[in-house]
């Protein structure tokens, strides 16, 4: 009998899902993420919860390949958007990750958008607030951007992306801090943002820095996912 608690099972499911996305990215997007679902949890509720946590990155292979989204992945993301909407007073990152998922559905699978209610997949268009992030100290800015790294995709305009674009040196500084703290997930997320920003100092050595993060943190599929996304963004994904 499975005695593991939901925390462990959810964490494991998120890692499994991230590994599947990485696999799809490595195959050039020809291996649909949804094809392997449900993952090893065998628990439908946990699977949908994992999709909610990984967020819009569940559709990353489709977002970067600019081809019609995999229907199974779209269906899962739509279920997660419906099943776990933000509460009445959500934390900013919760609201933004939900907005990102709905936005990904709008861009990649317009047919999944249901007219009307803001709680429906693809229906929520109003951006959450960014005031909490605009004047945040650079370590906080970088941490929060890394949490919301799923928004760092070409063609995805958002208030978060505009805040990041206005502070490239602060994000670069935060990347270095994350590396020095050995926070590989934050470093990978920040590095992913930096690949999209103008004005990043050349002295940062971003390419080598990302390579180092992969060397040290490459056992975590969530880290690899961000690094793979950053690599694709740096080397020729059509924008």
């Amino acid at each position, binding site marked *: 009998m499975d005695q593991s608690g939901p925390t462990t099972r959810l964490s494991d499911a998120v890692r499994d899902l991230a590994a599947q996305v990485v696999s799809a990215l490595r195959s050039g997007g020809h291996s649909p993420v949804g094809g392997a679902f449900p993952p090893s949890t065998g628990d439908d509720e946990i699977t949908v919860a994992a999709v909610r946590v990984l967020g819009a990155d569940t559709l990353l292979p489709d977002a970067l390949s600019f081809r019609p989204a995999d229907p199974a992945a779209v269906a899962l993301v739509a279920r997660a958007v419906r099943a776990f909407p933000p509460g009445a007073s959500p934390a900013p990152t919760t609201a933004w990750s939900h907005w990102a998922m709905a936005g990904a559905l709008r861009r990649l699978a317009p047919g999944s958008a249901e007219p009307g209610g803001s709680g429906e997949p693809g229906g929520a268009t109003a951006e959450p607030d960014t005031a909490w992030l605009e004047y945040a100290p650079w370590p906080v800015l970088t941490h929060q951007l890394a949490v919301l790294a799923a928004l760092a995709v070409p063609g995805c305009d958002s208030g978060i992306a505009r805040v990041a674009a206005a502070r490239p040196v602060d994000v670069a500084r935060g990347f270095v801090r994350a590396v020095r703290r*050995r926070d590989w997930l934050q470093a990978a997320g920040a590095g992913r943002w930096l690949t999209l920003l103008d004005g990043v100092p050349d002295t940062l050595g971003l390419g080598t820095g990302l390579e180092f993060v992969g060397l040290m943190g490459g056992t975590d599929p969530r880290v690899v996912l961000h690094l793979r996304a950053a690599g694709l963004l740096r080397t020729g994904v059509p924008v």
Partner: protein
Amino acid sequence: MSSIDPEVQDRTKLLDTEIESALNPIEVDGFYRDTRECAALALLGGGGKLLLAPPTPRPKKG
């Protein structure tokens, strides 16, 4: 009258809490002076490819 199994309801609440925690993680504690990391940084930094110190802080406004 609700027909939802209380156990299922509790589990879903727990899952909601776990999702919220995962979406709003606190920053993990940093680890410094790791020999393996320092060695790798030295190798990469030796080629002038990786910045080992943060950029100089900008003067505060006002």
